[in-house]
């Protein structure tokens, strides 16, 4: 498309949802290009996942052997180890926006972005999403390599179900973003939100299924964990990756949409309340 035609299309679509999509897609694309410049950062995260995967693989191999079990909580050893590959993939590559938003609230730079022709929250989502893909490639490559060496290839993965797994993974990123951005916006009320982020991270570790698949939790705790949104960030995509189940997919998708609606509404309300409190001084 020539520059003139593109400009004509942009002028025709101005203010429509198509123009909005193009705008945020451009932000995603630009940050994907930026992330190519920092390939070594992504490699570094890939190296980090080797550490975690190695420890998890050893822990669960020893546990399965000690229990003399082939299946625990409905998962075999190989499924359990590959479950952690996907869980680490989501955990290490998801949009980590809380710190950025907190800093922008604290130093006032948020005020300068309010007048720009994009929505602050959508901009940060698109910006973060652009950085995700490169990280995902390396984390998946390194994590899969460790799992392959420790327990062999993932023969149980249903290739035809992967698009659905990717959809659940994308929605997991959206849900996590709503929660993390809301935590960052708490900087309107408290000086430092890092403690809240740490607590959220650790809740994800336990009730979200990063350290222990939700199926392994005791009955009552498992029931609570399945109702809360945390398992929809890590457990849902990871479980579907290693043990595809159409009924479970529909349930998880429905729950994800409900929780995205709830947390998204809370996030927007928090942002509007905070934006009203922003005062801009010259300087």
């Amino acid at each position, binding site marked *: 498309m020539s520059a003139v035609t593109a400009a004509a299309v942009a002028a025709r679509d101005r203010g429509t949802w198509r123009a909005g999509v193009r705008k945020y897609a451009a932000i995603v694309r630009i940050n994907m290009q930026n992330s190519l410049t920092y390939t070594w950062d992504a490699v570094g995260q890939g190296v980090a996942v080797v*550490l975690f995967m190695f420890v998890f693989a*050893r822990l669960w191999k020893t*546990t399965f052997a*000690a229990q003399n079990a082939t299946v625990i909580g409905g998962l075999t050893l190989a499924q359990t180890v590959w479950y952690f590959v996907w869980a680490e993939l989501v955990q290490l590559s998801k949009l980590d926006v809380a710190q950025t938003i907190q800093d922008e609230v604290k130093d006032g730079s948020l005020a300068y972005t309010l007048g720009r022709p994009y929505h602050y929250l959508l901009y940060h989502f698109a910006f973060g999403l652009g950085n995700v893909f490169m990280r995902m490639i390396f984390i998946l490559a390194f994590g899969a390599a460790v799992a392959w060496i420790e327990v062999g290839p993932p023969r149980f993965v249903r290739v035809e179900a992967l698009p659905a797994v990717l959809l659940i993974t994308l929605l997991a990123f959206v849900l996590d973003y709503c929660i993390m951005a809301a935590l960052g916006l708490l900087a309107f009320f*408290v000086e430092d939100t890092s*403690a809240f982020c*740490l607590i959220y991270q650790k809740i994800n*570790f*336990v009730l979200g299924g990063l350290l222990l698949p939700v199926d392994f939790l005791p009955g009552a705790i498992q029931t609570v964990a399945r109702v809360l949104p945390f398992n929809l960030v890590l457990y849902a995509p990871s479980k579907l990756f290693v043990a595809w189940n159409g009924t479970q997919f529909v349930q998880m998708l429905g729950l994800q949409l409900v929780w995205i609606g709830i947390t998204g509404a809370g996030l927007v309300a928090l942002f509007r309340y905070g934006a009203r409190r922003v005062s801009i001084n010259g300087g």
Partner: protein
Amino acid sequence: MQRVYAEVRFAGHLVRLSLASNMEYRASFITQAVGMFINNGIYFVFWLLFFDRFKEIRGYQIEQIFLLFAIVALGYGLGHTFAGNAARLAWLIAQGRLDYYLTLPRPVLPHLLFSYMEPSAAGDLTCGLVWYVFTGRFDALSILLFLVCSVLAAVIFMSFRALSGCLSFFIGNASRWSSFLSNTLLTFSLYPMGLFQGVIRLILFTLVPAAFVGAVPVEVVETHSLTLLGGIAGAAAVSVVVLVLVFRLGLRRYESGSALNVNI
């Protein structure tokens, strides 16, 4: 001997100053410390759930895990309370911020390390003590060994952290690598050593001395073995010596930054 005493007193002054500095932002200090305490507590829930279901793994039951976490948390907390700058060393070197310490008539390394207190470390300290209570070991010798092991673990933690920070002397800004290496030490120290065999086990007793901050101290407190305690003390001494040698070597390559820094 008088010189050593003077340096210890100086380090004490630095720690008091850091504490006073943190107290200026009391609400933030308390929030971070309480946040870290809750953070550690939630993480520990994983092991409670794990042992609720699986009871034992390679000789470790929940009692040993309480002791392991108590020693690691207290050691980590002590290290980051008294020598918090070890965690920032890679960044300080890369930013050329050693100039301030180089111009003063005090040994650079201890002055540098003891000049910052990590506020959240108070949460780790508290966790360590609380977890020890759950071990049920209240005899004087066990408590003494627990405290001595935690102090030695703190020395190893911070020497290793600072040593990884020294990478900045050689490869530029090594903040990420420093952080990754110390996370490696911390991660491995929080798991029963029986999970790891062969070369990995050898590494955990040498290059990444996780065994000396976790599993070996647990055995010392359980068996009251003074031989093993001597082993931990030896590992701590070696880690300090290696740190001093590498820091001196790196300092020769240090290039001052042009930035003006104000230390208040």
